[in-house]
């Protein structure tokens, strides 16, 4: 599903990623760990073409992401769900609109949109908060809105960059359980995290980055 070959990313002479080779199979649940500046976010940005590698190939579901024409990048991103640490919600819009606004641009009928949004909100357990504004929600609820938005277009890959970075341990666990539930539907899930407890609790594949290199790749691994 995700293949990186000889990927390097350089910023002004410094390697954010250095000679990365990586394969993630369809339906896998993978934790990407490492200290700040290890290159986790950069690696994720390469997958949805927010960044381009200095050298190397990035394939996502067989698509050559590096050579993908700029006008097709939105189509690539629509096949993915992206979740951010800071949620990136539109504060002036309610929960429903935050989840719906992306699929509104696709020309779906109002009924289709309604069905999809309600279904996504049901998965994250926020059906009762559809009319709330993000400012009226807790951090965990806001992140659940972010997850619903990522899910609403039926992605085959879910990319979450530090999804629990701003949350307390209990809420983090709830968010991770939602992500695991989503993964069980066959959606490839890649999560970057600093959270030792979560990684150790779920015992999934763990890829550890340090100074832009993969130093460990363990199935059912732990955070060390």
């Amino acid at each position, binding site marked *: 599903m995700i293949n990186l070959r000889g990927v390097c990313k350089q910023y002004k002479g410094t390697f954010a990623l250095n000679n990365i080779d990586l394969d993630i199979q369809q339906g896998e649940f993978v934790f990407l760990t490492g200290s700040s500046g290890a290159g986790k976010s950069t690696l994720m940005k390469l997958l*949805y*073409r*927010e960044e381009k590698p200095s050298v190397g190939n990035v394939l*996502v*579901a*067989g*698509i050559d992401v590096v050579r*993908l024409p*700029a*006008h*097709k*990048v*939105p*189509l*690539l*991103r*629509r*096949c*993915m769900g*992206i979740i*951010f640490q800071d949620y*990136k*919600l*539109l504060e002036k819009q309610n929960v429903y609109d935050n989840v719906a*606004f*992306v699929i*509104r*641009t*696709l*020309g*779906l*009928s109002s009924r289709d949109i309604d069905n999809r949004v309600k279904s996504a909100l049901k998965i994250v357990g926020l059906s009762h908060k559809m009319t709330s504004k993000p400012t009226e929600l807790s951090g965990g609820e806001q992140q659940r809105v972010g997850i619903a*938005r990522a899910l609403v*277009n039926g992605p*085959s*890959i879910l990319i979450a960059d530090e999804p629990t970075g701003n949350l307390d341990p209990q809420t983090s666990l709830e968010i991770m359980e939602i992500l695991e539930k989503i993964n069980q539907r066959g959606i490839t899930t890649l999560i970057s995290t600093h959270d030792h407890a979560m990684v150790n609790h779920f015992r999934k594949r763990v890829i550890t980055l340090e100074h832009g290199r993969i130093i460990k790749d363990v199935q059912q691994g732990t955070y060390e």
Partner: protein
Amino acid sequence: MNNDSINSNKRSKASIIVTDIIIFYRVLMETIKGITQAGMMNIFIIGTMAAILTIFGCIFRTSIALGSVVKELGKVLEISVYLKPDANLKDAVFEVRNIPSVDRINVIPKQKAWTNFRKTVDLPNIENPLPDTLHVRVKSQKDIKQVAKSIEGLKEVEDVKYAHELAEKMREVSDISHTATIIILIVSGFLTMFIINNTIQIVIASKRKEIEIMRLMGVSDWYIRMPLVLQGAFYGLSGTLIAIIPVLILQRYIDKTYEFFAVPQNPMTINVVIATILFMGVVFCACGSFVSIKKHLNI
């Protein structure tokens, strides 16, 4: 997910049309939302656009009017050509007619001129001293100098006279008005783009987060861009509609001036002027918006 699915989904034509209509409707809604959110800023922008387009429209219309008057007056200017005593009148007329830009030739044989002259002045019975004369009109007063020079060079011609200074002044006025129009067009164009660019930058700044999220979520560039481009076009259109009022008032004064100089009027001219400021307002504003948001969408 594969390259094929990214390239296209096979859908029926009808479903594509329905989808496009829905998207267009939502883009329009986004545009209206953007305009509503701009609040009082709309008045400032539309007022400024109206002022620029009014200045341009009035100068453009005045320049056309001036051009028409100058052209009409220029038609009245004649070159008087005096032939040599032994010149063949028919040959001279033939040669003058062959000069490019010559419009009409009024031939006054020396005998006719002498007869007419004697009717006005009581003269003793002397030999006719007047030469054969041609009164030549040119197609455009701009060419009068060149035509006079060409006629001077003909072997049958003794002397050539025309209102040299008046012709020069008319040509200068015409040239200045054309140059002024072009300069004003360029300046107004830049001003329009500059103002709309700054305005859209403010709108973008207030929507920066929204645009970033839309980009990351896979919303097409054009969908992000189009409401802002339409918003720019709306400002241009509104400014034009206001600018048309003073231009129409100016037109009434120009009509009176035309009547005074007995210059024939072309009713299409005001339509051309309105179409030009409409084009300038809408297209320049839309382009200004397009350019200013382009850099925010670099992937």
